[in-house]
């Protein structure tokens, strides 16, 4: 990829990040901060080990949910809003290719998510420290895979939003996220539907994005160390899946007529 391409993708990404800041996407951090303060105050009477576990659970679950909501709703509106408002028309007349615009949008939202999650993680560590618990940096072993999962949600939301309306794209993405989080149910579908062909169940199981792969929250909250190999594998899984979905989205976006 040439430096011109990278410069243009970076320009779109930087502008997307600036849009997030100016459109007050980061206001969710206030809600997160309140959650952390309330948790700290309410759990102060419990023993140190109990309240440390609960604050970690609440904190990691909040990071997961807030990240998912931002990824989903910003993801579906990111490109579709530009098409609907025609704000991309003057840009695409410049030396900006459609795939550069698309990837720039993805990168900008990825940066928004990463910044948001970094702020929430810092808030979680600060809460642990303020309530007398040890700020455990091993929490990052749970946070990092969560961010990978959010990036996959963004890629899926972008993909669906280039094919359909933002509402349909949001529903389709949410369905995949729910199905992906219940992937074990899919794998064991033959216990409920014994006539279902085994190959079909296996195919659906492997085709669905397995969001359980990104969930190390419980293990980390219990103080378990996550092996580096497991983190490397989940990173590879995310890279391949996100790459494939982005490639599909770019193809769909390049073919789309912009009325």
């Amino acid at each position, binding site marked *: 990829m040439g430096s011109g391409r990278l410069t243009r993708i970076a320009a779109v990404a930087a502008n997307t990040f600036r849009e997030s800041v100016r459109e007050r996407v980061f206001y969710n951090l206030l809600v997160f901060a309140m959650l952390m303060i309330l948790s700290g105050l309410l759990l102060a009477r419990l023993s140190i080990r109990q309240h440390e576990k609960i604050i970690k659970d609440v904190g990691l679950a909040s990071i997961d949910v807030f990240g998912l909501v931002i990824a989903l709703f910003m993801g579906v509106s990111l490109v579709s809003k530009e098409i609907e408002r025609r704000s991309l028309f003057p840009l695409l*007349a410049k*030396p900006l290719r459609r795939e550069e615009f698309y990837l720039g949008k993805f990168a900008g939202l990825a940066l928004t998510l990463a910044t948001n999650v970094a702020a929430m993680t810092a808030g979680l560590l600060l809460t642990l420290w303020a309530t007398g618990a040890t700020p455990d940096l091993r929490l990052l072993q749970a946070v990092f895979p969560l961010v990978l999962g959010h990036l996959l949600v963004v890629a899926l939301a972008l993909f669906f939003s280039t094919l359909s309306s933002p509402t349909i794209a949001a529903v389709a993405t949410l369905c995949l996220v729910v199905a992906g989080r219940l992937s074990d149910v899919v794998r064991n579908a033959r216990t409920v539907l014994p006539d279902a062909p085994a190959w079909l169940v296996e195919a659906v199981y492997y085709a669905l994005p397995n969001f359980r792969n990104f969930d190390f929250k419980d293990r980390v909250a219990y103080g378990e160390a996550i092996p580096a190999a497991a983190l490397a594998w989940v990173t590879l899984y995310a890279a391949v899946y996100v790459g494939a979905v982005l490639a599909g989205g770019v193809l769909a976006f390049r073919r789309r007529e912009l009325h």
Partner: protein
Amino acid sequence: MNDAALEIQGLAKSFRVGFLGRKTRPVLRGLDLSVRRGEVFGYLGPNGSGKTTTLKILMGLLRPDRGSARVLGEPLESPAWRHRIGFLPEHPYLYDYLTASEYLDYTGRLFGLPAAVRAERARDLLGLLGLTRSASLPLRRFSKGMTQRVGIAQALMNDPELVLLDEPMSGLDPIGRHVVRDLIVDLKGRGKTVFFSTHILSDAETLCDRVALLRSGELLRVGRLDEILSVDVAHMEVLVSGVPAGALERLPGVLRRHAVGERWRLEVEERGLGAVVGAVGTQGGHVLSVQPARQSLEDYFFNEVVASGSLDQAWEAGD
């Protein structure tokens, strides 16, 4: 060097309409057009005649069903010419969370311009378009006319050789229109090619070296205005005052008369002008002005549209 800034050959486009898009409606029907370097070219037509569709195809926003085009000598599919053109879409929506300066800086980055050049160009263009004092306001606080002027500024950030403007006067007040007219004249003076679509025919008459007239996706006529319009005087327009209405009825050579407040505007046959002027003086009135009336572009356009079909047909296609 190729003499044409823009060459269009056999460009056709239909839109799918109806349930499941099973019907198609032609919007462009084999358009052939050539725009020379350095000229101001007006692309005229009523709403729905295919002007915007043509520009969208040229900018790669829509794919043509058939036909081809070359921009600044390069094939339409080549990315090379995009560094050398500027484009203003119709009713531009610009990011309202940015200021005008930030928006121009962003578009300059897409051309790979260095920061110092971006800052200088943005400052110059905002000054040229009368937006210096609003440069640091968010675009959501801009009026429609101000947004249009920022849209024109972004089309010029790369100092393009060819500028394509879709309805550049849309939403502008008289001062804004004057500024943009001067800007187009200045661009021509600097050797740039300007291609603009409009249905405001007076702008085209003032600015264009050549025009193309489009109706329902078909080209009616291309040429210089003096080739298209009749140079013969249709009649004389005489503005008079102090003459009773009854006296005007008896004047020979008066084709029509229109009351303009206390005055009368008379349409007079050229050969009867002397008699009418004399008669007005005899009646104790005053001749305030005498002007020859020639066929305007608007007259021509209206006659062509009506002559070659109904008004409904003129508006039938969608832009």
